[in-house]
């Protein structure tokens, strides 16, 4: 009798303890909130695709800044008409070659779009095949001069009127420096492979930065071609006393 009572009591105590243990593991408090799953938005069939720059498909073939600064020079001499090229370094200052303006009875300038410009004065250099022509009206576009001569291998662009024809742009590289092919200057000249022809004389050599690094003046028919370095041009512009009168016609 006592043993069964003892067993009963022990069982009761064990059950009680079990309940008490269960009470300890009950989910007492709610779990912390978590971010709900993304809501699926209906009504939009597909996301629009916008390609950057897709509107810029039109290719404009207008005149480049180099072309806008270029001029066609007509030299009417006693014997005939010579055509050369030039470019503006200031609104009223044109650079070209000395042999383009030599013996001029009349000098006529025409812009890239066919407008005429009235020549005010002209002068030629004695130390290189360079000339400065001043005009009466402002030009809209000019080309900046580089501060130093180009290095061999540098890319160049030449803009001018080869053969006295349409305004043409050609590309090439500086090959090396060498003696003046005409033999009229003791200064080293730029030798390059940007194609030019008769009529391109006075064309600017423009580097990748858009700055003038030389002035084309001579070449062999199959190349290479010669140009006056920009440092000589700067010397002429900085020292107006280096300019002499244009040799007269006849």
């Amino acid at each position, binding site marked *: 009798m006592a043993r069964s009572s*003892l067993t009963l009591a022990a069982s009761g105590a064990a059950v009680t303890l079990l309940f008490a243990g269960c009470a300890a593991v009950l989910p007492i408090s*709610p779990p912390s909130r978590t971010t709900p799953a993304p809501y699926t938005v209906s009504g939009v069939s597909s996301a629009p695709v916008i390609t950057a720059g897709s*509107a810029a498909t*039109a290719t*404009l*073939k*207008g005149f480049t800044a180099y072309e806008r600064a270029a001029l066609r020079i007509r030299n009417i001499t006693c014997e005939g008409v010579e055509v050369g090229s030039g470019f503006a370094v200031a609104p009223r200052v044109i650079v070209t070659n000395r042999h383009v303006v030599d013996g001029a009875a009349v000098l006529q300038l025409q812009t*890239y779009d066919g407008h005429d410009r009235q020549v005010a004065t002209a002068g030629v250099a004695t130390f290189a095949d360079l000339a400065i022509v001043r005009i009466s009206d402002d030009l809209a576009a000019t080309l900046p001069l580089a501060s130093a001569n180009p290095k061999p291998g540098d890319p160049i662009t030449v803009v001018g009127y080869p053969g006295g024809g349409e*305004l043409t742009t050609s590309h090439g590289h500086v090959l090396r420096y060498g003696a003046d092919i005409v033999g009229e200057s003791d200064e080293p000249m730029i030798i390059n492979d940007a194609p030019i022809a008769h009529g391109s004389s006075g064309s600017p050599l423009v580097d990748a930065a858009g700055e003038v690094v030389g002035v084309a003046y001579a070449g062999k028919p199959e190349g290479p071609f010669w140009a006056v370095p920009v440092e000589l041009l700067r010397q002429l512009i900085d020292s107006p006393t280096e300019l002499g009168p244009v040799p007269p016609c006849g």
Partner: protein
Amino acid sequence: MTARDEPGETRPIPVRATGPTVPTVPSRTSKPARRRPPRRWATVLAWTLVATCVVSLGVLGYGYQRSLDSAQAWKALATSTTTELEATRVELDRTSETLTKTKLALDDTRQALDETKGNLNAVAGQYNDASERIRELADEKAKVGDEAGLLATAVAQAARLQDQLDTCVTGLRSLQAYLVDADRADPEALASVVAEVNSGCDEAQSQSRDFQEWLEGR
């Protein structure tokens, strides 16, 4: 009465007889009758069980109360979450509607952009044509200017040639006058004039031929 002497054992307290003695009831055994002492461990166990039950009931009660509180918190959380979800769903529906409208507007804009792109291409084509035409016209004008310059040069050269021919004719007329009265003229002077006139006329003829060839070459 009994007195504790030793644990688990009692023995009767001797009583001094002061009156008539009452014979004691003989026991079933020959040994004197002794009461079985209650077990102490049972008492301790009983108290332990009682204490355990009381503590367990307390824990159960505490747990029950915590469960009630937890259920209340869960219910509140569920209510607030449901409200928030409903508000979020409404907001998402609004957003979806806005996106749909935006997509329609974007489609319209894209269509307008395509039309603008087409117009731009057309304008670019016209611009390119105009630029090309300007290039051609500038070249044509330059060529005309060159021709005009050439003509000016030709006119100047023709004027110079005209002067030379006039000089030649003048010289020939003078020579003719000399020859009419040749007997009175100095033969050496006459020969000099003839040579001078011939030289000038030869030069004029040469210039004339060169000019004619130059014109033909043009």
